[in-house]
């Protein structure tokens, strides 16, 4: 969900205005995903690298994430969306963790679409944390074999399938430490639109681009 800051700068607004406007884009995209039959959407809400932003912006983002989850969880529950959290606990505000856990509990049995909120998430951090947990199990004798398949079970949301498509807005053509393991064979779709200007039609266009690709997974 890239481009909030630039959207605000273009309109001479503070960066926080871009994040506020981006909320409606996210949930319009979620509804558009449900309409088209997508089963899982992961949104990169707050990266471990975002801590480097100004303290005021970080404080705003923490509070904003908490409020959005609280405000939208009932709406998501009615749509049949299951909310999951992928991210690290350290440094994350307790109030944000609490709202995420309440939303996860409320929507636990929903199966229309899984919305994974990546808050305080980093691809490398996820792999290091997974390695830590896996090694702990191996040392305790609970795990006999260490390979790629068993490793995948220790990711933040192990039941989430690998991403078919990684969609980045604002024209940036980078992965930015996002879903390193899960995006190994993902199709990257880069859209020039800034995130607050995105709606479900942009998602559908991205999916159309994805559908035209020939995925071979390294074989013939």
């Amino acid at each position: 969900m890239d481009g909030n800051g630039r959207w605000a700068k273009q309109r001479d607004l503070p960066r926080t205005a871009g994040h506020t406007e981006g909320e409606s884009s996210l949930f319009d995209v979620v509804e558009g995903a449900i309409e088209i039959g997508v089963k899982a959407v992961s949104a990169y809400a707050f990266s471990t690298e975002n801590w480097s932003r100004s303290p005021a912006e970080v404080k705003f983002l923490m509070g904003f994430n908490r409020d959005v989850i609280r405000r939208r969880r009932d709406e998501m529950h009615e749509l049949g969306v299951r909310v999951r959290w992928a991210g690290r606990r350290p440094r994350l505000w307790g109030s944000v963790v609490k709202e995420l856990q309440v939303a996860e509990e409320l929507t636990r049995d929903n199966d229309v679409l899984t919305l994974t909120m990546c808050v305080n998430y980093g691809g490398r951090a996820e792999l290091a944390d997974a390695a830590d947990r896996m090694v702990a199990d191996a040392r305790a004798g609970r795990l006999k074999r260490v390979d790629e398949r068993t490793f995948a079970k220790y990711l933040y949301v192990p039941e989430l399938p690998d991403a078919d498509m990684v969609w980045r807005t604002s024209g940036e053509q980078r992965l930015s430490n996002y879903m390193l393991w899960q995006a190994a064979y993902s199709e990257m779709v880069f859209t020039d639109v800034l995130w607050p200007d995105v709606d479900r039609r942009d998602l559908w266009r991205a999916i159309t681009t994805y559908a035209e690709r020939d995925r071979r997974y390294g074989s013939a």
Partner: protein
Amino acid sequence: MMASQYTRSGLFPFPNSNSPLLSSPSLFLWLSFCFTTFYYYSRLATQGQRKVRCFVYCRNKSTPRTTYGFTRFLYLPSLLMEKNGKSMISKAIGHVSFVMRKCLFSILSIGPVPAHIAFIMDGNRRYAKRHALHQDSTNPGSGHRVGFKCLISTLQYCYEMGVKYVTVYAFSIDNFKRDPQEVQSLMDLMKEKIDELLTEDSVLKKFDARINFWGDLQLLSEPVRLAAKKAMDMTVHNKGPVLSVCVAYTSTNEITHAIEASVREKQENAPIEVSDLDRNMYTAGCLEPDIIIRTSGETRLSNFLLWQSDFTHLQNPNPLWPEFSLRHLVWAVLEYQNVHGYLKKRKGEIEKNK
């Protein structure tokens, strides 16, 4: 006024003229062409004289001398003849191309030149199919052979430009799922080309480059594995740029390998951190790629350098790998230069926070 006598140019002041040849940029190119032609012609003439010696007696008539006068033009027919199996014309074109590339790279180097470029060399088989290259049971890898030639020329351009690290995705672990005949031909081709890279006139020798092979080399056939090891041993002390060949490689395999290595070096119950995995990657000690280029228009990373591509600019030009040429490389660098400022700023902010 004096200034009005000159064309508007920062390079070459010259009297006003309507001739396009005398306008500044084309003048520069024209002068380069003339200089190069004269320079190379002089070298050809000198070489020709070694074939047909002409003695000119100066004041001391007992001293034979080769001539540098008008008679050099008499040697022109012999200069165009085949010499050492390579046409003089092709050598001349090569020299002209080299000078033109030097000029081009000098201009490019006004902006930031990437230190590390990684290539996913996609499209060899489609190229072979499209161009109906001869593919049969004895030679199923013709597209890959053409692709190797493209790799050599791309390496040359990168090193001439000043790129320090070039990484190529030669063979994925997933590629073992292909037709066994194709896999075997790829293994044979790899062995042949590794040996070729170690010869005296190879691009590695020319630039004193070092070669690395990254991947689970135990999965390779023994001849290829031994050839790779020999190549790494022979070039380990080279001081020039680096070519890293990812063979029997996937990023997920690399990460798993790094985890195993981290566990072995850690004490009991010590947590594994990002820095531990970083240190045990195949790419430890190498700069992260500035650009990853995947040819043939595909926009997947296909399990290539996932860990290392945090700030990497991903590009997916349309040409198939054997069609990738200097102009595509130059365009890739220009695109990188366009985003470099922003990436550097973002990277700086994150490094400061660590």
